[in-house]
């Protein structure tokens, strides 16, 4: 699509103002309650800036002050500027809080409050219309309603008490669903994916998906963007923002409500017509976005994008531990559109000097159990890596880390496992070729989980199945190659 020559000033202004909301120095939580376990105030316990509560109910105030948090009867009473407001009041009170946010010139407000148009009740629709009008006229940045607002890992601004706070992550997530937004950050954390900023945007009456895309596209912390979306209001605007973002960094789009029954569910949520799946797919292809189908798929692709170096081609060098695994790892990668070519003569010559061919072979895949597993010879794994590194027929390397092998090693010589993680991590760091590991849980889920975590901690993309690894890598390669304008 052509870049529209439209006026981009409002867009730039929104981005600048959103930057204040996503990076607050002061936060006010309005209407937190004991019945919710003071969930919002507890979420912000990791926030090092100044946190205020707004609550009028004396019974609630006592509990809030016990937590050591300053409470005010009104936003307007707080003696400094407020960058981000979380509003959890009941729906009928929400217009008054919006008016206060406007009077206070708050940076922005996330309305956790629900019961608006999504309920299809007259009061819900009317109140939503009212707060939308108020916010639009005053230029108030309104996130939601019916949403979980933002998560900024670096600043400890959270929307779930289970979320991590600490160093900035690299992945931004934009979600029409609060559940998926929180789950992405939680599941992602287990898979070596740290978030930069995420937002659950709910009914999107003022700020919509394109606004957040525009923001994360230019956010330097965010290197990869993932999106969960059910329907878009202005498809052409969404595509413009998506395309512009995908030209700067990978954007993964997970669409909910693709099937006929699924789209009926979306309709009953949002009362908007959905697009035929083939048209949606075409639109994503046109925008240069990577499409995923579910949370696992999304996590896997993001993992490959974050941890694997950008690939220059589709040709795999594969390492497996047994003959049977060599066959199926090859099928898995070929099925996802990747190639498993023969190696160069020079590689074969080097391999012939040390590769154990009793119960093994090295055409590619390398059936290497006897060489790096059972008859472990120190240095052999590194030698395999070196050969694949130098082989010009190989663009990317994937290695099976088999459960049987790991369990036996753990029993015999646990120190060797750490040594292996070290060798693999060092290879990942020094090689320009994408590298990934497959740690199938097999019969030892806990052990393999630990192994996967050790590898991920060192930045080695590790997947639970050949298929997941192949699919994620393939999707990331299509993106990098289209960015490099390679067919």
């Amino acid at each position, binding site marked *: 699509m052509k870049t529209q020559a439209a006026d981009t000033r409002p867009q730039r202004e929104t981005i600048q103002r959103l930057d204040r909301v996503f990076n607050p120095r002061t936060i006010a939580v309005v209407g937190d309650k004991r019945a919710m376990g003071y969930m919002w105030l507890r979420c912000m316990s990791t926030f090092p800036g100044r946190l205020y509560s707004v609550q009028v109910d004396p019974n609630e105030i006592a509990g809030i002050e016990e937590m050591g948090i300053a409470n005010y009867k009104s936003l307007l009473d707080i003696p400094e500027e407020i960058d981000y407001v979380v509003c959890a009041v009941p729906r009928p009170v929400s217009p008054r809080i919006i008016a206060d946010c406007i009077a206070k010139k708050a940076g922005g407000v996330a309305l956790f409050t629900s019961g608006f148009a999504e309920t299809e009740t007259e009061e819900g629709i009317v109140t939503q219309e009212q707060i939308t009008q108020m916010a639009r006229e005053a230029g108030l940045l309104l996130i939601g309603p019916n949403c979980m607002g933002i998560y900024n890992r670096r600043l400890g601004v959270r929307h779930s008490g289970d979320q991590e706070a600490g160093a900035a992550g690299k992945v931004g997530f934009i979600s029409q669903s609060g559940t998926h937004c929180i789950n992405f950050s939680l599941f992602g954390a287990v898979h070596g994916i740290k978030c930069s900023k995420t937002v659950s945007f709910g009914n999107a009456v003022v700020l919509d998906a394109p606004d957040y895309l525009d923001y994360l596209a230019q956010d330097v912390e965010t290197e990869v963007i993932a999106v969960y979306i059910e329907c878009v209001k202005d498809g052409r605007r969404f595509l413009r923002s998506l395309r512009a973002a995908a030209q700067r960094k990978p954007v993964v789009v997970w669409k909910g409500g693709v099937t006929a029954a699924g789209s009926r569910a979306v309709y009953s949520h949002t009362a908007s017509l959905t*697009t035929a799946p083939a048209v949606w797919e075409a639109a994503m292809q046109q925008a240069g976005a990577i499409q995923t189908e579910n949370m696992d798929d999304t996590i896997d692709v993001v993992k490959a994008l974050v941890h694997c170096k950008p690939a220059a081609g589709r040709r795999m060098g594969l390492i497996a531990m047994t003959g049977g695994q060599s066959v199926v790892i090859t099928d898995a990668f070929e099925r996802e559109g990747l190639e498993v070519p023969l190696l160069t003569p020079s590689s074969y010559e080097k391999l012939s000097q040390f590769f154990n061919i009793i119960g093994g072979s090295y055409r590619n895949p390398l059936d290497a159990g006897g060489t790096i597993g059972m008859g472990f010879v120190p240095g052999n794994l590194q030698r395999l890596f070196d050969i694949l590194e130098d082989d010009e027929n190989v663009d990317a390397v994937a290695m099976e880390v088999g459960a049987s092998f790991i369990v036996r090693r753990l029993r015999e010589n646990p120190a060797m496992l750490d040594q292996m993680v070290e060798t693999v991590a060092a290879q990942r760091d020094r090689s320009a070729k994408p590298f990934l590991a497959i740690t199938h849980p097999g019969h030892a889920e806990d052990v393999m989980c630990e192994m996967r975590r050790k590898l991920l901690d060192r930045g080695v993309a590790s997947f639970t199945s050949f298929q997941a690894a192949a699919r994620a890598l393939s999707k990331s390669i299509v993106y990098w190659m289209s960015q490099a304008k390679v067919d």
Partner: protein
Amino acid sequence: MPRNPATPNAQQQGRLLSEIESKQMLAQAGIPVTRARLARTAGEAARISEGLGYPVVLKIVSPDIAHKSDAGGVKVGMDSAAEVHAAFAEIMIAVKERQPEARIEGVAVQKMAPAGTEVIIGMSQDAQFGPVMMFGLGGIFVEVLKDVAFRIVPLEPRDAREMVRETKGFAVLKGVRGQQPADLDALEKLILQVSQFIEKHPEVQELDLNPVFAYPDGCIAVDARIVIAD
């Protein structure tokens, strides 16, 4: 023209232009179409045919008939004034029998284009994305196998390139059983021209070039249908 079942969310709102009007509008935008002229009588049809040169094609012109072949309203390959006279009469009889209520303006006369590989280029409205273009090979590829590619308007050259290549029917365009390959550059250019045409004419709600004949050298739309917003 056969119905295009692959077009999603087709909305039959607005006014259907006649083939002659549709082609005029497209020709003005530089889109390659076979020009058609209206004949109200058999004599007029024969005179126009003499001017165009043979062979010719006759098609019924009626605001009430969207699927002209089904109504018996299409005759191809007439080589003389006498054949044109006869064909005109046959069309009138067939249409009156099958669709007696239809208002008939006359018959569109056009020079018969040499046969080529049939492709379809269409546009329909999507609830979220607005105008969406469709490309596919004619006949069973589109109608039975739904083997089509979509792109949102406006298209870039890369989009047209991918569109032509991502259908299974692409294998046919590349040339099968000794056939010469179709002119892919010409098809891509046509797709981009249609995209620009749609952008320039927001009143166009639906559009079908069906079929387009793709040749080893060039391509031409031999039938066209446009729906304009009221």
